Every structure is written in C-alpha cells, then in structure tokens.
C-alpha cells in the first residue's frame, strides 16, 4: 500500500516539477511548482511527519507560491521573446546534480529498510521548540520581524 502510494506521489511530483521547469508560460510554471510543493507535502505525510507536511502546504503553497505568482504578475510579460538554451545554466544544474549524486553515493548509513519510529505529535515538537531550541527559535523570530519591518520601511519611503 505504502510503496504504491510512494510511486504514485513520486510520479506526480516529478511530473509537476518537470512541467514547472519546461513550460513556456511562466504563470503555468509557477502553478506547477505549487503542485510539486503539494507532492513534497504528501511525501511528508507518507513518512508520518504530519506537522512538517502541513507546514509545507501552509508556507509553500499558501505563501511562497502566491508570492511567486505576484512577482510574475508585477514584472513585464515577455512571453513572445524567444528563450534560448543557456549553456551556463545547464552546466550549473549538471554540477549540482553531480555533487548531490556524489554525496548520496558516499553516504553509508542509507539502509533501505528504515526502522519504524512512532510519528511525532505536535505537542512533542512544541515542547522541543520551547525547551532545547528556544534560542534558535527566538533568533529566527527576530530575523523575520526585522525583515517585516524592513519591507514596511521600503514601502513607506516611496510615499514620503
């Protein structure tokens, strides 16, 4: 049951990602990207990481995808302009793929049958965040608040 689900989700996610990389219209690509995010969230659900999956949908589909869509909307449309093949882009992609492959092949602890662990509850995650990881959490909060205020300041200057 789980392996069937895995294959189905993997095919859908990869197809969406491929479509996001290759579609001509940018807005279609962005929406396919959102679909790929949902696929990744489905993987998290399959692995029993319910909280991570929900946050994935919440943050990436609800916020990041909308942000990307708005960015495309606010930039000029140049769909007519021919998009050539970029050798530099292909080279970088190939290099990253080779690096990842090298890292995966060298990892020894990658057993195929992972031991089953009990799914984490939201309560456990919350407790960990509020005890062991409270300082990283606070720092992240500070950075995000600074970013928020910075964005507001940038927008306000335009008016004055």
């Amino acid at each position, binding site marked *: 049951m789980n392996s069937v689900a895995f294959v189905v989700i993997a095919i859908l996610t990869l197809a969406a990602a491929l479509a996001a990389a290759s579609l001509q219209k940018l807005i279609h690509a962005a929406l396919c990207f959102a679909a790929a995010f949902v696929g990744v969230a489905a993987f998290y659900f399959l692995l029993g990481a319910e909280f991570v999956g929900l*946050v994935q949908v919440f943050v990436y589909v609800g916020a990041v995808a909308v942000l990307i869509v708005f960015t495309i909307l606010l930039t000029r449309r140049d769909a007519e302009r021919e998009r050539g093949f970029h050798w530099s882009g292909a080279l970088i992609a190939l290099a990253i793929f080779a690096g990842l492959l090298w890292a995966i092949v060298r990892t020894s602890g990658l057993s195929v049958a992972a031991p089953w662990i009990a799914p984490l509850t939201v309560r456990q995650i919350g407790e960990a965040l509020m005890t062991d990881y409270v300082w990283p959490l606070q720092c992240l909060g500070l950075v995000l608040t600074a970013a928020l205020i910075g964005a507001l300041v940038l927008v306000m200057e335009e008016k004055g």
Partner: protein
Amino acid sequence: MSRFLDQIFVLAKQRLLSQLTDAPDWVGQTVSSLLNISALLVVFLSLFALISVLERKILARIQNRIGPNRVGPFGLLQPAADGIKMLIKEDIVPLRADKVMHFLAPILMAATAILALGVIPYGRNMTPFAIDGGILFFFAIGSTTELSVFMAGWGSNNKFSMLGAMRAIAQMISYELPLIITVLPVVMVAGSLRPDAIVAAQGGYSLGIVPRWFVFTPWGAAAFILFFISGLVESNRTPFDVPEGESEIVAGHMTEYSGFKYATFFLAEYFGMFAISGLAVTLFLGGWHAPLPILEFVPSYAWFFAKLSVLLFVFIWIRGTLPRTRVDQVMSFAWKFMLPMAFACLLAAAVWHYEGRAFAGWLWSLGVIALVYFALSRILETGRKFAPRTYRFAE
C-alpha cells in the same frame, strides 16, 4: 436510548464495516474513508441546497418581500430548479482566456472547501478525519484558496476579473492573520491542535449550569467576534464582498464564468462558509456539547448542527442589513484594529490561565481586553479626518 441515538451513525458505519472483516486491511481502510467522504458530501450538499433557498427566503423577509414560493411547497424545490437551470446553461469561455486555468479554478476552489470540512468534529466520535494537527490542516487547506482565486482572475483574461482577484487575495491575506491569531488562544488553553481535544476541553459546566465554552470567557468572546468577522471576509460575504462588488467590478473573479462553473464557485463559497462556521462552533461554542446539563439527552450532532444553523442565520442576517464597505476601509480595519485586538486576546488568555482559570482570572482578562480596546479606539479616533478623498490612480 439517548446513548444509542447519539451513536447511531457510528454504529451504522461499524455494522457496514463488519461485513468486510475477511477482506485485507487496506480495503477496510479505503471503504471506511469512502463512507466518511460520502456522508460528508451528502450532508453538506443537502445543507447547501437548503441554505440557498433559505437565504433567499430570509433576505426576502428582511426586505419585506415573500421570496421564492413557486416551485414545490414553500418554494423548497427551488434548488432543484436552479441546479437544472445551471446545468443546461451555455458554458461560455472567453476566446483569449487561458483555457486550462479557467477550467481548473472552480474545481480547485470547491475541492479545497470540501477538504476543510473533513477535520471538524460533528458529534461524539464523529470526526471524519481525526488528524493530530487538524486546526493547522484547516488553515493550510484554506490558504490554497488564494491560488484558485488568482487562477480564476488570471485565466479569464479580463480586467474586472483580475482586479477582483487582486482585491480578494489582498483581503484574504490580510484577514488570515487575525483569523489564525484568534485561534491561538484556544489552542494554547486546550493544549492541542486536535479539534476533538479542543471540544473535550470545553465539556462540563461551571457552577452546575454555565457550560465551559470558551465564548463565555472575556478573551473567548472577543476572539469569537474577531474570528467571525475574519470569517465573513474569508468567505467573501457582505459587508466584505468587495472582491465581487457588482457596482464596481461586475462580479470580480467570477465575471467570465457562467453555467455550472459559476455554480461551482457558488458552492465553494457556501462550503467555505460552512467550514468557517463549523470551526467557530468547534473552537468557541463548545462543539457538540449541550448548553445545559438537562439537555444532554439530545444527540450531540443535533447540537452541532443547531449551533451551525444559528451562525449561518447570522451570516444571512448581516447580509440583509449591512451595506458593502469600501476597499480601503476593509484593509485598514484589518491591520489597525483586528490585528492588535487579536494579540490582546492572546495576552488575555494567558492572564486568564495563570490566574487559575477562575473568577479572578475572568476579571483580569476582561480588564486586558477592555484596556486594549479603549486604547485602540482612542488612538484610531485621533487619526480620523473627514477630508475629501484623494484618488491616486483614478483621475
């Protein structure tokens, strides 16, 4: 007897599933899920049909008319007539539209609205999909609505559609913040994101008669009102239906939709309204708990749907009485009033909790809410000027 009536649907499902004991495990699981899904769809589609005619009836009474009364007894078959009309109407797709997006937008919107209904506990042991982060699931699914609205606006390739979609998205993002922050105090006090646990935390009666619903605490009452207003905005209802203000932008993102696609949008809007009302009942109005100890013999799901109907009636009542707000008023209300008040609810809930959840805590938390409310109204009052409006873009 009352115990049996309360669990009648649960027992019926178990009886059905007991036929499948010989089948493999996954068949049982799939059938169980399918049963839940079909029950959910049957109940809410009939509620949708009922509410679509009741809304017209109630609005008619408010406006001193009679309302639909031609089709069937008291006009009750009106939804069937409407459905047939919608099905046989021509489906018009603009020539320059983005066909795929134009087609997918209503489907995605309705699908997410239905998904959100799945995590609400409708009665004792009657949560269709009881997952650990149910509340989070609700909002994660709700946040994808913005994408479908965008798809509708962009796919139609029409300026009114796009303007309406932009308005809708701006409004949804702004009000999602107070919506989620007003849920936080409840999650904090109940100590769980599971809707069942939140309902369980509201069981019992203080002083023997007053139910322990969160709406009877000062922070809960304030949070409930804020949540309800945000819910009005999220489901695009009057007085916050600026995205489809017909006097300004035709019908917003639904301008280029006709026939059954339009009906699907309509359905999604109502399902969203059911979902947000259902969540409000779960979070603040005690879910399926009875309001008085002597009324506990009434089945739990009856109480849930009674509370849901009251909230839906308020939705319709507000639509019948209030005029539409202006776009800039909607936005400044969200950021200047709703958001600080939502944070005040969080603080008041913390005060209530640490004062021992008793009468002293009740008074203290009322004090916090009142202080923030009067301070805010004072600050916002000084900034209010009735100067002639200046238009930046429409000259």
